[in-house]
């Protein structure tokens, strides 16, 4: 597949407004399969301990990835659907850090010491709510308790809010080993910024990007959002031009999902200012066109990357993965989630920490792994997870390879699912041959809709409440 597929990805996915409108329905984003709503409180600490013990006993135990959640933000952005706590009290950060260290000290010895950490990511909230000094302390702590790889493939990344960081802070992070940064921008249009309660100047943002480059970060990602209140094609176009000019290695263009029934912060947002469905589609179209013209490859879902970026290269190799942190080149590792609401993916299991700070703290202080819910994947879950993962990353399935890997007859195993897929074939989203499923260029913007055909848990009435729309 390789080369040919790669060039197809550089070409922009064709934009068909009518098609996108028809398929703009709620569905999971498949950062995991099964998705988090399937996790159960019946999965307990003892199950997690057992899963970890087994993961150590593989002939070649997987390397480790660590995700650290920092839930605090100094001010509320009204579009936010993340788990976060608004505070300006830096003491809360200090206390949280103490608890994080307790949790890490509990978790680290459970993993055999020859299992190297290949990836560490700080997400939020706002990770840089913690001062560089505090982050440094925590990094030292982690490095004493885990065995960090010294390979140049090691990724240490952090989400940065450019509004509360100074160029010096960036240099400090780089000195600690951070080599990837992801910056929230959303939109530079002042009217939009006011409507979402996030005032962030172009200058301060560009200064942070510049500082990342000068400090030797190997990759900078910028997050944008379309579908925000007061957003216009002209304004978003200007934002795209400004961002593209700085050549971030990766750009994510997320769709704003307005679900105030699920995400409280969104209730502060003035619904009447939201763009129409038509405008929202035009914004997406604009982003795809501008990014493609500027030479960015479409990776999948909301993600674009420069052709020389590792994501684009991994996709070309067929080696791209997807996990809770988005697309990655490291998903053959076991993922340890630290902090409130974090999700771990160890062996064939998912487990999640409590979503509220109090419950997480109580568990950690009592000396127990702070597990709220999780699940042990069945054999069928594992097969479908692999299929959906492959699909979301590569947009195609090599059927004989898949059959060999899982020891199944594909067309028999997925007989029911393929029936659903045939309806999408009629809409020219996917081609189905005896040996290959492949997203058409029209289907590439709707990968998650196609993946949903293989989701054994999907029940149409439940999805409306739990998941955001596709576009």
């Amino acid at each position: 597949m390789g080369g040919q597929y790669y060039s197809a990805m550089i070409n922009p996915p064709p934009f068909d407004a009518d098609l996108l409108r028809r398929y703009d329905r709620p569905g999971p984003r498949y950062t995991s399969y099964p998705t988090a709503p399937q996790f159960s409180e019946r999965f307990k600490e003892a199950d997690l301990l057992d899963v970890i013990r087994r993961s150590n006993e593989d002939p070649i135990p997987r390397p480790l990835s660590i995700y650290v959640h920092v839930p605090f933000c100094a001010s509320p952005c009204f579009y936010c659907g993340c788990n976060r706590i608004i505070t300006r009290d830096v003491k809360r950060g200090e206390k949280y850090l103490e608890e994080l260290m307790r949790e890490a000290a509990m978790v680290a010895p459970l993993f055999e010491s020859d299992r190297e950490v290949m990836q560490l990511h700080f997400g939020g909230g706002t990770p840089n709510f913690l001062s560089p000094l505090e982050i440094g302390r925590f990094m030292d702590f982690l490095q004493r308790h885990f065995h960090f790889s010294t390979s140049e493939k090691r990724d240490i990344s952090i989400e940065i809010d450019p509004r509360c960081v100074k160029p010096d802070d960036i240099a400090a992070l780089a000195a600690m080993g951070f080599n990837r940064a992801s910056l929230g921008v959303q939109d530079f249009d002042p009217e939009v910024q006011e409507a979402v309660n996030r005032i962030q100047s172009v200058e301060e943002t560009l200064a942070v990007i510049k500082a990342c480059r000068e400090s030797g970060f190997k990759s900078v990602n910028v997050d944008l959002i379309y579908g925000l209140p007061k957003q216009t094609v002209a304004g978003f176009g200007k934002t795209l031009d400004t961002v593209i000019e700085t050549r971030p290695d990766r750009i994510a263009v997320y769709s704003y999902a307005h679900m105030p029934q699920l995400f409280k912060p969104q209730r502060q947002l003035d619904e009447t200012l939201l763009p129409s469905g038509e405008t929202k589609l035009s914004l997406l179209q604009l982003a795809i066109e501008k990014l493609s013209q500027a030479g960015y490859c479409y990776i999948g879902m909301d993600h674009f990357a420069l052709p020389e970026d590792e994501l684009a290269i991994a996709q070309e190799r067929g080696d791209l993965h997807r996990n809770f942190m988005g697309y990655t080149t490291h998903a053959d590792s076991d993922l340890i989630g630290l902090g409130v609401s974090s999700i771990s993916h160890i062996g064939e299991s998912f487990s999640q920490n409590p979503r509220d700070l109090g419950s997480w703290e109580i568990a950690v202080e009592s000396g127990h792994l702070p597990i709220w819910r999780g699940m042990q994947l069945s054999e069928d879950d594992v097969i479908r997870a692999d299929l959906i993962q492959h699909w979301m990353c590569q947009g195609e399935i090599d059927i004989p390879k898949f059959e060999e890997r899982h020891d199944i007859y594909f067309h028999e195993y997925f007989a029911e699912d393929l029936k659903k897929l045939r309806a999408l074939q009629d809409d020219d989203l996917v081609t189905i041959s005896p040996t290959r499923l492949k997203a058409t260029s029209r289907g590439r913007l709707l990968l998650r809709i196609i993946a949903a055909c293989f989701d054994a848990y999907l029940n149409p009435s439940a999805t409306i409440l739990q998941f955001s729309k596709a576009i």
Partner: protein
Amino acid sequence: MSVKRRPSPIADDGDEIHFCSTCAFSSACQSEGYSKSALEELHVLVEHIGPFREGDHIFREDDEFNAIAAVRGGTVKTYVVDTDGNEQVLGFFLPGEVIGLNAIHHAKYPCNAVALDTVMLCRFSFPKMALLASKMPGLQAQLFRLLSQDIGKAALLAGDYSADQRMAAFLIALSRRYAARGFSATRFHLTMSRTDMANYLRLAPETVSRVLRRFQTEGMIAVERREIELTQKEQLEQLARPVLRN
């Protein structure tokens, strides 16, 4: 139609006139030309037991010996605990292989046997089996063959071999044993933990992983979780030759 492609390494069940597909004795008996009905005598000594779950003990050291058992499905590990309290892994028994042979002499089991996954056994009363063997030369020969194999197995790793040679010999031996029972010789599931493997091979667990990782980098094997594929079996055979001697 089944959605699974490869036969499961859990044997299909026999009945009063058919052997299970992995039966440790069927080939000996059939090659001697015993008719199915003559074999009924053998079948009466047989008792299918299990399933044992992962971690269940099948027998413990010093239990009174009265039966040997053929593995029908799953993997059994035998081990002893030395005077310092350390576990020493003696061996792994795959479908078609017989456990308890080393107890024949002592009238007591000299080791522990534990199920590594879901294990099904075929239990033979030993006194009755011995009596029957005296009437069936083929069965007797097969018993002796099994006994000598069991003795030979332990001696294999006693020599002064490198970690690479031990690991290669272990993989090739597994491959041959699976192949002999009609399973794939190049792709199988490693049912034992890396700690058990390391213990058996007298290596550190990290060394087991390091060697396997190197074999993988060199293209000789592909490992994913506990699935292993021998992608260049000849090279492994070469590496294993000093240990296996053929």
